[in-house]
Each structure stands twice: as C-alpha cells, then as structure tokens.
C-alpha cells in the first residue's frame, strides 16, 4: 500500500491551508477597510499591471480595495459553506440514523421526504424560500444547511443498516446496551469515514450554490460581501476591469477543486479495513 501522499494531494492541502490563512490574516496586505471608497480611484488595475501601488489587486467600481473585499468575501463564503455543511451533515445523519433504527413507517416517511427533496432542483427551493421570507444572513445559512441533507440521510441510513447487521453490533446489543450507546459509541465511529468524505464533497457544492445565489443578487446582501457577490459585481465590467470578477472566480475554483481532491484522497484512506496491520 502506498503511504506517501501524492503531489496533487499535497498541493491541494497547501492551497486549502493558505486559503484559510488568507481568510484569517489577509488584512495585512491591505491598508484599507472593506468599506473604504475612493471615487477618484475607481476601476484601477492591479499594482503589478501599472495601477496605484497601494491597491495590490486593483479597485472596484466605487474604488474599494479588491484585497480587502476579497478577504471579507472569502470569510463570508467560508463561514456560510462551513455552517451550511455542518447543519446539513448533522440533520441528514440524524435522520438517517432514525430511519435505520425505527424501520417500518418511520423509515418510509423519512425516506419519502428524502426522495421529495432529491427530486426538486434545490435552486428552485432556494429561490422560493428567499422570495417568501426575504433575506437575512441567518436564514441564508439555514437555507444552505438544507442543501445536501438528503444525501447524508440516504448515506447514513445505508451504512448504519449494514453496520448494525454486523455481529459486533449484535454482540453489543446482547450485552444489554441501550440503542443510543450502540449508535454513538460503536456505529458512529465505524461509519464516520463515509460521512466525512461526503462532507468534503458537499462543501464545494455549497460554495458554488452560495456563489450562484449571490451572483443573482439573492444571496449575501451589502454591506456584507461574499465571493459570489463580488463576482456578480464585476459582471458589467468584464471587458474593462476583468480583475473584479477574475480574482473571486479564481479563488472559488481553487477552493472547490482542492476540496474535491482532498475528499477523494480521504475516501481512499479513511477505511480502517484497508489499514495495514501494525504488528
């Protein structure tokens, strides 16, 4: 078995670490606050292309520093994606466990909900909910959490059913363990790898979803900003000031790609059965 991670995997991890680092301390590259406007310095190109040297990556249509904007947008996008992924993972996993435990009508009902969700394009659900309830950050994050829960539910139900049919689960039951103990201490650790892999696959999808909605103007609203929103802002200036859309686009691209590579690698590695014997 190969133990050395591939170059691709190392690169992907490096990218993700630097992205998180930028989100945390990226402000040191910019002397400006995210809201600072400079109407005389509108649509200036990045410093290395002849723009003013205090604007490393150029300015947008009302003269805000792109670096400051990107750092703020990145923070928001990561926060929304992270919160959304976790909400979806927890809700979906709990539903999957419930379905696998109760079987019968409960299972059929829950799985019908799953099918219902899976058969509707999520963007349609999102647009409808946003149209009815208006937009707020909390609502938006919950909405992102609704995305993908059905894949966790299906996955969790499947892996839990197969894990509970293993003799060790029967043995624990016959020790007299409460079902909660069985699920939390024995089944969950054994199926966690599958769920973690699913998380790494959903995360980029949520980033893309947030981007699409914000691009359409239905997502994150000013004065907050996100990568998708910046991307949408630059739409009208693509021919004159391409940097407004290209920087956030590039960031989204490397984040989703690296996350997917990492997820694939995790799927190959996290299976305890594949581990070599240690003695």
């Amino acid at each position, binding site marked *: 078995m190969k133990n050395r991670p591939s170059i691709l995997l190392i690169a992907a991890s490096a990218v993700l670490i630097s992205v998180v680092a930028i989100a945390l301390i990226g402000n040191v590259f910019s002397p400006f606050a995210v809201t600072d406007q400079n109407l005389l310095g509108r649509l200036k190109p990045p410093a290395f292309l002849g723009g003013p040297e205090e604007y490393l990556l150029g300015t947008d249509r009302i003269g805000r520093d792109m670096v400051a904007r990107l750092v703020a947008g990145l923070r928001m996008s990561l926060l929304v994606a992270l919160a959304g992924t976790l909400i979806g993972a927890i809700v979906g996993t709990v539903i999957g466990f419930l379905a696998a435990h109760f079987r019968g009508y409960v299972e059929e009902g829950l799985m019908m909900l799953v099918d219902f969700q899976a058969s509707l394009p999520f963007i349609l659900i999102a647009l409808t909910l946003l149209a009815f309830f208006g937009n707020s950050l909390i609502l938006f994050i919950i909405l992102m959490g609704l995305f993908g829960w059905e894949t966790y539910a299906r996955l969790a139900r499947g892996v839990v059913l197969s894990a509970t049919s*293993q*003799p*060790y689960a*029967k*043995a*624990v*039951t*016959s*020790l*007299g*363990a*409460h079902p909660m*103990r069985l699920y939390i*201490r*024995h089944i969950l*650790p*054994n199926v966690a790898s599958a769920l973690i892999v699913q998380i790494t696959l959903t995360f980029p999808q949520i980033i893309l979803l947030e981007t699409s909605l914000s691009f359409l103007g239905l997502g994150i609203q000013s004065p907050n900003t996100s990568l998708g929103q910046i991307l949408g802002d630059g739409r009208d200036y693509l021919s004159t000031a391409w940097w407004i859309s290209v920087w956030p686009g590039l960031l989204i691209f490397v984040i989703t790609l690296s996350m997917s590579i990492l997820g694939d690698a995790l799927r190959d590695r996290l299976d*305890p*059965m594949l*581990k*070599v*014997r*240690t*003695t």
Partner: protein
Amino acid sequence: MTDTLLDIRGLSVPLPTGADRPFAVKDLSLSLSKGEILCIVGETGSGKSLTAFASMGLLPTNLPKPSGEVMFEGRNLLTLTEEQRREINGRRLAMIFQEPIAALNPIYRVGEQVAEAFRLHTKLSEAEIKQKVIDLFTEVHLPNPREILRSYPHQLSGGQCQRVMIATALALDPAILIADEPTTALDVTTQAQILRLMLDLREKHGTGILFITHDFGVVAEIADRVAVMRHGTLVETGPAKEVLLNPQEEYTQNLLAAVPRLQPKVSRSYLGEPVLVASKVAKTYQTRTLFGAGRKVKAVDEVDVTIRRGETLGLVGESGSGKSTLAQCLIRLVEPDGGEVTISGGKFSGLKGADLRAARQRVQIVFQDPFTALDPRQSVRSAIAEGPIIHGLSPAEATARADGLIEAVGLDPSGGDRFPHEFSGGQRQRICIARALALEPELIIADESVSALDVSVQAQVLDLLAEMQERLQFGMLFITHDLRVASRICDRIAVMRHGKIVEQDEPATLFANPTQDYTRKLLAAVPGRDWQTNPTRKAV
C-alpha cells in the same frame, strides 16, 4: 506410481515485500500420478491454495513471478504463454473452487456454462453439445438433467452447483482435476455425496486429482497420498494411511491430535438445576413480493429446550435447519413469534426496554466469525469492560475484571490496549469469549464459535470453553454443524431439521443407537469417521 502426471519441482511463490514472510510457497516438490488423489492439507496461510493457483496460472497479479518447475506433459506450466495456457486450461487441467455458487455466472443458465467449454475447445454441433452436457449431468448424478440444463445458478442448491462445476471441469476429460476446498462450503451429507462422486470419477476416467483441504476427515475419506504443508513448505508427504496413522513429523502429529474424535464424551453427573427452559419457541419468516405475501418458512417450529447449570447442549444440523435462528430467538436478537423463555429462573421472553437490557446479562453469545464480532475501533480491554460498565460496575472495577479475563483466556495481559485487527482469529475468539464471560452470565450460546478456526486453534478454544465452564458453571448451548466437535464438548446433543428438534440424547446413546433416519444419515456422512477410533475397519 510410475505414471507421473504433474511434477512440481522446487516451486517457490514469492510474496511482495512487506508481507509477513518472503515466500508464500517455498521450494515445494510434489508429484501426482494418473488416477491418484493427492490431498494437500494445511492450516490458513500454509500456501496450499497458492500452489494450486500457480499450477493453473491463476496467481494474483500483484505477486512476483514464481520460480521452479511445474511439469505437465513435457511442458513447464510456469512458463506458458497466454495462448498455450488457454489451450491447456479447461482441456487438460481443470479446477473447481470452494464457493460453487460464486463460481457460476448468475445470469447464464447452467447448461450454457457447461456447453461453453465444448464451444471453446471442440468443433461439435449444438445438438451434440447438448447431448454431451446431459450425459455429463447424468454422470455427476444431477436429478432431471434436462430440466437443470435450463436452470439458473440461484435456482440450484450449493451441492447441485458444485456438481455443475464438476461437470464443467470434466467436460473435456482433463488429465488433472484441481479441487480447492470443494466441499468446505457444503453441508456434511452433501459433502459425503461429492466425495463419493470424486472417487467414482477417479475410478472411471483415471483422472489425477489434486485435492486441497484443511479437513483431516476428508483426507481420510478419499486421499491416496497426503502432503502436509505449513508456512509454505512441505512438512511431510506419504501414503494417506502412513501419514494419518503414523505421522513422522511433530507438526503433523500435533495437527492430528487436535482433530476431535468422533467419540462420545463421558457424561457428567453433577449437573445442577436448569438455567434455560424454553418451550414452544417459534419463528416464521415470510417472504414478501410485489404482489403481497409470499412463501412462509417455519424457521423454528415450536421447539422446547432445557439446559442445566454446567451442562453443554449441542445443537447440530445442516444449514437452513434453524439452529442459528433458534439461538437468536433465545437470546432475543431476533424476536420470536411465540413461546416462553426462562433463564436462570427469571422470565426472559416478553421483557421490554430497560427490563430486557438488564436481563441480557444472564445470557451471552459468541459468534462464528471472530473478525466481525468485535468493534474494529474499540480497544480489547474496553470491549471486555463494556458489558460490566453498562450493568453498573464502576469503570475501574470493570477494567480490573477485563484485565483478569484477558489473562484467564490465555492472552498476554499487556495486550488490552490493542485493537482487534492486531490479533489472530483464535486470539480474537478468546477476546469474544472474555467479553461474554465479563457479565458472569448463567448461559452462553456459542453459535458455530469454532467453525472458522484452524483445527489446532479450534482445539484450544474448545478446551478454553470447557475449562471456563468447569470453573464458572454456566450452561452452554453449543451450535455446530460438525459432529466431531459436538462429540468432544457436549453432554447432550440435539439434532435439528426443518425447524424442529428431531432427536435429543446423550452422545453415547445418540451415536450408538440413533432412532431417526436423519441422524443416521448425518452420522454416516461424517468424513473419514472411523480412522481415529477404528483404523482397521476401512482401508484408508
């Protein structure tokens, strides 16, 4: 022995670097003559199957190339090209496998699969091929060959599938038949028939048979010569009678000593009050189809069982007889449809929720496969201590009890922090036994608990169970398909068939005077049943 068919000279199969030993098979020399049955016996990891695979050119592709020679009809089988290999395999050399159902393609009718051998290697017409296949099916004693021709593998029993595989192997009248544990997955009565068939074939066609097995009973039943392997090397070879009755090597002597004798255990007299009283336990399974209720199967049909303190009741029967379902109903891993179960004086059936969970400490189960019976992510000590903790013992006391048990079941006391995958199969089964004993149960159910283990390990685990029972006086329900094992450990044996216990008695009485035809059939089917107790009766 002049007519040598297959001559293996200095065969070595290397393993990839990082494996537990450098060679899977090392410097092995063996020969097989025309019309001879050579049994290769050995425990798990002895390299017996890889020897067969090397001869057939079926070695896993991740292994380095084997060295040495396997001479057959003047050619070295190890150096054949793909094309030469196709020419020989199937036509001159044929192989049958352990899992007959898995070795048949599920989407083709079995007749087609046998016919394929003729289509690939001969120019016969379709009608001729069909006739050939029917003849073959008749020869391997398949009932209604014309109907079976059109059946799919899933419509046949395991024994019938193995007959189809044998028919395929014999289609082109090969010089050599290589059989890799062909009867291990089959019931004992089916096994007896297949072994009979092999002997017939050898008689009629003069086929040389290389028969790989772990079961000395089977060896005694059919082998002309035996080769004993261990860790990839040949330990001892010779005529079957010599090796079985007068083994020269210590390893062979130990292996043979570990094979349980088909000899009733002396009954014990000091048995106490009943710990398990079960009456009219029943479980019916109903298959459901799209169009409503399907077939009903009475897996357990109103069975009564009583086990006394310190007593071992053996439950024997073939697969599908309902032994495991009965055990799972008794311990309520499967909810029985009806019946009363009382364990050590307290009612066990009908309990719910917390009462049931509390009562579970009175009865524990040890499963067949020690590789899946332990949570792979839980350390051994924590697995053993879990039961007592659930039932209210403080973690410190439970850990102390677990450490005591690890030692009591014969494991290194420092091994408690390790995880199940770091132990061998026999060691894991000891851990499972320790986990069951940690609750100090009144009744232990051992569901084929030694069936997956090598014979020497099997003997040790059986001894451990007997010794623990002696000390702790629990009652034991011992489920097995192996009458030798049952005769070694059980005080009483119950024979189960079609969900009912058809006969129940002390082993001595049961073996001497079985009242049921079915029991007689089972006893007669035990392979090589006399070779240990009465070696002169049958020329082994």
